[in-house]
């Protein structure tokens, strides 16, 4: 024991003493062994810093920040897709505004989390919330949740209404089949009104039906008026958006 002590300085000995202070024979024989849970028996400070140069959970903050930034990008892309969508309802535009706001806030939180991974500081938590970790957690997960729900909502709406969007975009180029136009234009002047067609598609109820020949049709039904008569318009479009299969007004 005496010779061992003489070959080591006191710090090396202390490195090899486990809490609660028992000498670890394995660590004495293995100079590469530095158990993480070793403490100085006099100061109780850890002998080996668990993650030297960074905070203990830096990878957690990197992952969290990356997740926030990904959520932010998806939310902002979803919101922009609603803003440029010609058939989006006012409700959906409202959802887009909220989603965009939550997306931007989540992106800022993501940047703050990555900053925390590098430096241990988080400018959102420290500067905006005065270091209140609990308030920051509620805020950051709240904005992230709103951005996620908004993205899912918009994504689902866009997916369901894809035929409506395509019909709206293509109705100006769509043709009436055969002599349908010539036979009816006299009594149905709305045949020539692309604005009317677009209004029916935008505001109408959309249903999809499969015809006898297996073809898919999209039928848009919208309330409206023709002259002094109140009723509903029906616009029937083929699934390739090339033909206005039927277009008629029925009074109530």
């Amino acid at each position: 024991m005496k010779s061992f002590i003489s070959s080591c300085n006191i710090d090396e000995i202390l490195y090899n003493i486990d809490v609660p202070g028992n000498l670890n024979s394995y660590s004495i024989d293995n100079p590469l062994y530095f158990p993480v849970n070793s403490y100085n028996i006099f100061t109780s400070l850890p002998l080996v810093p668990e993650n030297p140069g960074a905070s203990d959970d830096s990878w957690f903050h990197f992952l969290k920040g990356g997740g926030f930034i990904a959520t932010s990008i998806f939310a902002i892309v979803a919101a922009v897709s609603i803003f440029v969508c010609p058939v989006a309802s006012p409700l959906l535009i409202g959802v887009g505004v909220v989603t965009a706001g939550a997306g931007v806030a989540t992106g800022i939180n993501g940047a703050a989390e990555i900053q925390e991974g590098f430096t241990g500081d988080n400018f959102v938590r420290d500067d905006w919330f005065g270091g209140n970790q609990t308030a920051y957690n509620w805020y950051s997960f709240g904005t992230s949740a709103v951005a996620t729900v908004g993205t899912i909502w918009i994504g689902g709406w866009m997916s369901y209404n894809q035929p409506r969007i395509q019909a709206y975009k293509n109705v100006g180029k769509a043709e009436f089949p055969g002599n349908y136009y010539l036979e009816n234009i006299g009594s149905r002047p709305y045949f020539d009104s692309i604005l009317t067609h677009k209004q029916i598609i935008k505001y109408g109820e959309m249903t999809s039906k499969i015809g006898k020949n297996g073809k898919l049709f999209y039928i848009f039904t919208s309330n409206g008026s023709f002259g002094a008569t109140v009723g509903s318009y029906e616009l029937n479009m083929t699934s390739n958006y090339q033909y206005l299969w039927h277009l008629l007004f029925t009074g109530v």
Partner: protein
Amino acid sequence: MIIELTKKKYQYVLDCFYKLKPQYYEDIKNSLVIDNTIFALGFLKEPNYIIDINLPSDVITEILWYLKNMRDKSMNNNAFDDDLYSEFDYYVEFYNLINSLK
């Protein structure tokens, strides 16, 4: 009820009556008066075809129900009967005309 129509529309209405309610076809056909007055002054492209349609309310209801039912049957469930819907499409102006008689 007195109704002014174009020649094409008049022929269409007669055809619809012939197919749906043939018992009223002759009465309506015989009620035709061709009014040349405004046409002669040059304000119209063709004379007015004026007919008198007098239908009992139950007949009006029956025609409307029949045509509405035709439309609904064409869209039964997920299937789309284009032939039946096209037939309704043909009658839809007639439907609106009869509907205005209510």
